């Protein structure tokens, strides 16, 4: 089973990469751009057919290694 971890900066943590990209989009004429936040996705495949178990395992991985709670929030999505 494959689980996708969506990692995003916590609110209030400045994202200079995102704000620079937002500025670039505006300069290209996308005037409606209000904010761009750049995160990352991590796909983890675990040896189980049970979605609940896969989510539990990946959540534990997020807490221990994959994300830093000072900087980041995460959401999990079962892919297959």
């Amino acid at each position: 089973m494959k689980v996708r971890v969506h990692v995003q900066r916590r609110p209030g943590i400045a994202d200079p990469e995102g704000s620079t990209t937002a500025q670039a989009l505006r300069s290209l004429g996308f005037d409606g751009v209000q904010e761009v936040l750049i995160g990352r996705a991590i796909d983890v495949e675990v040896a189980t057919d049970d979605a609940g178990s896969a989510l539990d395992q990946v959540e534990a991985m997020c807490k221990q290694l994959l994300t830093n709670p000072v900087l980041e929030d995460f959401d999990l999505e079962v892919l297959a």
Partner: protein
Amino acid sequence: MRVAVAVFPGTNCEHDVAYALELQGAAPELVWHTSEDLSGFDGVVLPGGFAHGDYLRTGAIARFSPIMSEVSRLAQAGRPVLGICNGFQILCEARLLSGALMANRDTSFICRPIRVRVESTNSVLTAGASQGQVIQIPLNSYEGRFVAPGDDDLVVLRYCGPDGELDERFNPNGSTDSIAGTSNAAGNVVGLMPHPERAVEELLGSADGALLIGSFVTSLQPA
């Protein structure tokens, strides 16, 4: 005084650190990150570099290297533990210091001499300095912006101007409250982004770093 200088795959400042420690009369020894025994060492330094390629996040993988349980043991035993640049990032990831480091405010790599002001002398790095003293040492990092989790941080050094002024102009990387270095509550675990080991002789442009490294060496007690 025996000091372990931890070497991870990707560490690149270990020789400079060892040289700076030697100048201050300590006996440094390079120790590979797979070591599980630091008994007999009076303290440990985690030097700069790109441990484990900085993959995932800076320091995230290094904190699980076997040597880190010994670093934690020494920290808990009150031995001096110093993390410089990437070493600071590792100590934060290992929760031996609070906070985290991320990409600089201006998303540019910074490599130049900067000034820091001594905010506290209650640390193994600054015990030999005076409160408010301005020190010039090089900064050399892309992910040097310190983010404090709250207001419980123990600030040891802040980026400042020539006369110790605190101002965003003198905050090179956008760190919270211009923080350049922090410690744990006991003051025996210290991390900082700039490199004192690269400013230990006038030939290097500044010898201010020798004061900090000397302070660390003085604080070592026989194990």
